């Protein structure tokens, strides 16, 4: 038996062991299949452009773990949404700024289809949302004819 064959059989054995000991939970596959239901039909995506947690600058990284406020930026071609996420115990305070500003309605949506909060941005495009807990959410901005409807990428806050 060559060394390569040896390697292959040891890897295969390890793979079988890990497959038995640590299989993919069926719920993970189910949730993955269901994710297609979140296809955008009527809205424009505001992509996640920056996240201080993944910041490239060393200082931000060093601060990352303890920083009470995380800064996230979403953007479409024309608009940017800056969001500060502040941890307050189990809860989260989201402070947002849409620029250029528009007095839109901002909904915080959860993956189970519920809307956690709905607030109106002021004329400077600012809005504040208090969430009772952590979780994966996205924002849906609507209510301004020129703006159309914008949905942000999902983030876990």
């Amino acid at each position: 038996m060559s060394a390569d064959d040896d390697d292959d059989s040891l890897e295969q054995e390890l793979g079988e062991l890990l497959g038995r000991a640590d299989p993919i939970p069926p719920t993970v596959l189910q949730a993955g299949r269901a994710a297609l239901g979140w296809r955008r039909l009527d809205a424009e995506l505001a992509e996640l452009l920056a996240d201080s947690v993944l910041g490239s600058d060393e200082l931000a990284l060093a601060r990352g773990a303890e920083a009470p406020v995380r800064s996230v930026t979403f953007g479409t071609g024309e608009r940017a949404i800056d969001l500060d996420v502040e941890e307050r115990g189990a809860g989260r305070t989201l402070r947002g700024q849409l620029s250029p500003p528009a007095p839109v309605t901002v909904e915080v949506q959860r993956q189970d289809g519920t809307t956690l909060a709905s607030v109106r941005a002021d004329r400077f495009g600012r809005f504040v949302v208090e969430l009772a807990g952590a979780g994966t959410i996205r924002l849906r901005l609507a209510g301004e004819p020129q703006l159309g409807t914008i949905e942000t990428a999902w983030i876990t806050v």
Partner: protein
Amino acid sequence: MTLAELLSQARDGDQLAWDAIVERFSGLLWATARAHRLSAAQAADVIQNTWLRLVENLDRIQDPDRLGAWLATTARRECLRTIRLGARELPTDEEWMWDVPSDDEIDSGLIERERDTALWRAFRVIGERCQALLRMIAAPDPPSYEEIGAALEMPIGAIGPTRARCLDKLRRNLALEGADLR
């Protein structure tokens, strides 16, 4: 069906095409999350966020053949996010996977159970980097080197030599455990 066809049908809302993509790459994503030493619950969240990211970007994937690498990169970033946000909650080594197989898990006789236990013990002490790499390489539907490189942020050229070195370590540890090399 090719990945390009599956992606194009999923874009049109075809659930079966999407399911096929999920089934094909879930092993890669699970291995990526576990290679980052996330708990099962954290791994589930990371994988779900990765699929949501793909759904958001279905009409932007330029090169279907690189979908696996795109998913692995996305999952790695989600893993780093999770680790940095929840540094205090990282699982201990014991919680990472399992200690010894239980009787229910392995019913194929005592000898194989001993061998599994020895292999597991040997695997536990080869170091995090080697564990991560072998976790990826031993995943079901073995990922390509490009996908592994994306999942672990490792240069593709380093994977082959590191793999050989890690297997060597594993084999030596296994010998120390007194297990026969089959």
